[in-house]
């Protein structure tokens, strides 16, 4: 019975595998920064890559799915991007924290599933 429930919960978790595109705008910034996230899901663990476009992708770190909550990190160099998102149908939206060794900035990010992958 417990195994059945566990399987049922796992089955209810959103299938996030695939490409997600969107943008974010850091507070005080002039421009929207494009985003392309390519997710691979293994149960509650996420892997894959993310970056501004297909030609510049960085590996996902600490990717997790907990119900509708999705979190992962990406280190692009001096900056580390920490995503805390909520999944709703074909949309992932939430907060993005950008950290360097000098600054911390926050942004709102929205990603939508790329159709016809």
């Amino acid at each position, binding site marked *: 019975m417990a195994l059945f429930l566990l399987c049922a919960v796992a089955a209810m978790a959103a299938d996030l595998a695939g490409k997600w595109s969107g943008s974010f705008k850091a507070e005080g910034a002039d421009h929207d920064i494009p985003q392309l996230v390519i997710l691979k899901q293994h149960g509650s663990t996420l892997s894959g890559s993310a970056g501004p476009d297909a030609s510049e992708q960085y590996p996902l770190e600490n990717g997790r799915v907990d119900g509708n909550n999705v979190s992962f990190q990406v280190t692009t160099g001096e900056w580390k991007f920490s995503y805390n998102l909520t999944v709703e149908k074909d949309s992932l939206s939430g907060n993005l924290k950008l950290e*360097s*060794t000098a600054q911390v900035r926050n942004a709102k990010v929205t990603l939508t599933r790329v159709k016809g992958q």
Partner: protein
Amino acid sequence: MRKLILNIHLAIGIVAGVFVTLLGVTGGILAFEPELDRISHRDISYVKPGGRALSLAEIGNAISQKYPGEGIVAYLPSTNPDFPTRVILSRGIVSINQYTGDVLGVRTRGQSFLGTVRVLHVRLAMGNPGPFILKWSSLATVVSLLSGLYLWWPVKRMRIAGRWWSARFWYDLHSAIGFYSLLPALVLAGTGTVIGFEDHVSRLFDYISPQRPIENDLVLPVAKLEEAPLIGPDQAVAIASAQLPGGVPYRVQMPRYGGLYVVALEYLQRRVAGERNLISLDPATGKVISAHFSSDLSFRVRLLAANGAIHDGSIWGTPSRIVAAIASMLLPLQATSGLLIWLRRKGILHTR
């Protein structure tokens, strides 16, 4: 006419004075940001030169021993024998003695004092209103300086003759500082205004000199991120350096973090503004995928980079940074003395 100019000068001082003061204080600190940053992290910012510098592969091995299983995002090779090589990891930026392989420590990510000073200078540490207020304050400073010159011209006061705290003292101080710091302050405010209105200025520059299209880099498929590169970082640097003889590598992005090796080089002896030489390499074959040199940059990018270098004083090294810092720090004094003159004239403040 003189009365109109005086009113404009006064109005700017009253409305924008506090922001000009903030820009001046923070700008004066930021002129020496690299030095202050090193001093505040002294134990991980300096090495004693001696012997052969380790290769990047050897440095990578030392890092892997200290932090097993952590991928290296990028190497930041030292371009100064007294400074350590740094290595970017997910946990932060590790300083390593390139002569001994000793790991000096890690700079973790987070808000620092200098980071706070920078966000105050750039956006008042707030969202969209911050940059808006500051760019108009910069422009107001330009107008204030020019109107101040107009007002100063008939009097031409260059010395402080008044007694301490007298009305004459503050007037003389305001006039003398205004005269002696006019040129550098005008340059700082002018270049700051260009930075603030960069979008508009960019459109103007592109109209004057249309931007050349940049070919998209050919980048390996994302799947390649999982594979280990076949050439090492030292080979990547050697291949990239051959593309720019005399260039010194200051950043080597590892292929797992972007799909390619990306080597950034600079000329130490002639650090021109906008020095951006980037060579991208296929990590499997060492083939040069793309090479962007600062000489290829568009008129707009080079001019805006030069503008930024003039603004922060880095364009002519330490002397220009000292001038920028002094001129910047004098802006608050100008705003304060101007305010005191106005308060006295209004009868709000009594001086001797």
